[in-house]
């Protein structure tokens, strides 16, 4: 593997982690969706690069799915849903930006320590890719727990899933990657349809998940 292959893969995966940080401090829904579209775009580039480097043409399918579905269709659909349901545009956070960023830095450090230590046998490309992927996954989880708004939790889940696709494509020669990315796309599509069909806005008057919790079965 030549030097430039490694550098570009590294650059793209690192950018993905950075964009995850950008998502962490967005406080408007539309801005968050734009950042997520950028996240998916970088993922598509990264997967395409892996397809090229590993000489694995089937990964181009995953790249196209990431580009068309996650970078374009999903953000556009969510834009429309937000407009249609009239969801208020500001995101309520559980903790402040500073705390969330610090926690994020801690999580990235944690995933570096864990992954680089346990994978010293693997080849360097897969190794660092995996460390970055775990960072993206953990940042996605952090976003889901620090937001109260259902749409931004879904965005958190989707960026978590981008991290998984990054890990799966980084693992050289892994079978079923395309199938798994398709299965995940179905899952995400259903979640997005779920926001709309369940009419969270209509039923609960807000997409704030805290309002949903009022209905928990114990207090009826």
């Amino acid at each position: 593997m030549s030097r430039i292959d490694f550098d570009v893969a590294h650059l793209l995966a690192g950018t993905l982690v950075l964009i995850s940080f950008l998502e962490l401090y967005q406080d408007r829904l539309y801005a968050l969706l734009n950042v997520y579209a950028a996240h998916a775009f970088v993922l598509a580039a990264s997967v395409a690069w892996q397809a090229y480097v590993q000489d694995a043409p089937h990964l181009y399918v995953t790249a196209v799915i990431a580009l068309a579905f996650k970078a374009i269709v999903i953000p556009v659909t969510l834009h429309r849903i937000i407009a249609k349901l009239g969801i208020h545009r500001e995101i309520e956070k559980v903790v402040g930006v500073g705390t969330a960023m610090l926690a994020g830095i801690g999580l990235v450090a944690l995933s570096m320590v864990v992954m680089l230590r346990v994978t010293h046998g693997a080849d360097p490309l897969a190794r660092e890719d995996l460390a970055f992927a775990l960072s993206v996954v953990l940042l996605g989880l952090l976003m889901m727990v620090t937001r109260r708004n259902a749409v931004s939790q879904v965005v958190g889940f989707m960026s978590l899933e981008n991290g998984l696709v990054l890990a799966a494509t980084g693992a050289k020669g892994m079978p079923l990657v395309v199938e798994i990315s398709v299965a995940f796309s179905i899952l995400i599509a259903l979640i997005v349809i779920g926001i709309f069909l369940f009419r969270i806005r209509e039923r609960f008057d807000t997409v704030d998940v805290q309002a949903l919790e009022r209905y928990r079965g114990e207090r009826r």
Partner: protein
Amino acid sequence: MTIDALTGVLAIPAIAAALLAMLPGYRATARINILATALTLLCALSLFFRRPEPGAYLLLDDLNATFIVLTAFIGFTTSIFSASYIGHELATGRLTPPFVRFYHAMYQVLMFAMNLALIANNIGLMWVAIEMATLTTVLMVGIYRTHEALEAAWKYFILGSVGIALALFGTILVYMAARPVVGEGLDAMVWTILVKRAAAFDPALLDVAFVFLLLGYGTKVGLAPLHAWLPDAHAEGPTPISAVLSGLLLNVALYALLRFKMLLAVNPGALAPGPLMVTLGLISLVFAAFMLYRRRDIKRMFAYSSIEHMGIITFAFGMGGPLANFAGLLHMTMHSLTKSAIFFAVGHVTQVKGTQRIADIGGLTETNPVLGWGLVLGVVAIAGLPPLGIFMSEFLLVSSTFARAPWLALVLVFGILIGIAALFLRLNGIAFGQPRGPVGKTQASYVPMFAHLALVLSAGIYLPPALVAWFQNVAGLLG
């Protein structure tokens, strides 16, 4: 491709799902649903006699044969219960015909997904199947479209998705560990090949992978503290789905964990998965036992009881060894049968009373004797009183644990006793005393409930030697 029983357990639900999605009408579709599950059960039983060779995607061994037969059997009895339950829901207008059509199709898709997860030989395929099972149950939990049902479905959706996402990360890590040894490509995800070569895998990578798998699939098993979705999903969905969730889907997720546990057991350098499972199991048991006290919703209460029993089963498999594994398998079978029988009874009780609030349900043995005594028998069985089946598995587990780790056995017994007391406290108000709440009528089908309870009772009194030998064999496989 030759048609064998293994393709049968997949093809029948798949075809039935497509058929049911197209056909209108309730009576005919309910019968087709029953017929399809009956055929699946026959196929599953025939697996005992003729066994196909494992391929790159599908596998059949003694371990998953046990699970498949259990799944097919409870799937069949639940479809009978479901026919009368759904009939009542249609009559009262809680469900409309399009939703019933959707429900039946989803029921078969769920059966397909669970069977696929059980016979998958490829860890990636297994993951996809479990994801599919999660999605179908999410759709069914939200089917009533009430505030509570939607909230439960949403919560289940988000937590379940995070769980399966973590499980996928663990699966990728297992592939990474296998790749240097097995080589690139499909072989490095085939379970039978993995387990043969696992001794040479990098232990550190396997350790991290197992932690992710435990958290991921553990969410689906409903282990505390990852259980938050479970009570809501059980309480708000249609009762047949509660029965299938408790009796089957939790087992399927546990089965996935067991497969990976077997993988780690082969590798001498990897961490022992046992203590982790023992800890999570005990936490779930004690936590759920205490939570049983303050339940006001009858389905929610039995959902917590499921968490309790999944804790016991996880504990048993975590202890390992022939005796504890045997107890775990027996407990799993008995719990599936008993809990689904209880949900059959509860389903009709809530239809008769028109509510799930425990405070509004009383004196059932007087107003609806058959239903009331069925429920009493079920609760006696689930609490683990002799001479029923669960007593036997709990007794085996407790006595074998006392010999190996007395302190753990103390916690185990403590948790079980707390759980029993809570169940009887509530049962007393529900089944005996002054009749409370409205008295309605329902077209109940008692056959599935009493069939399950009879099996549990007979297993408690006399276990056929063939069954004992079979379970011993499987327990040996689990190591």
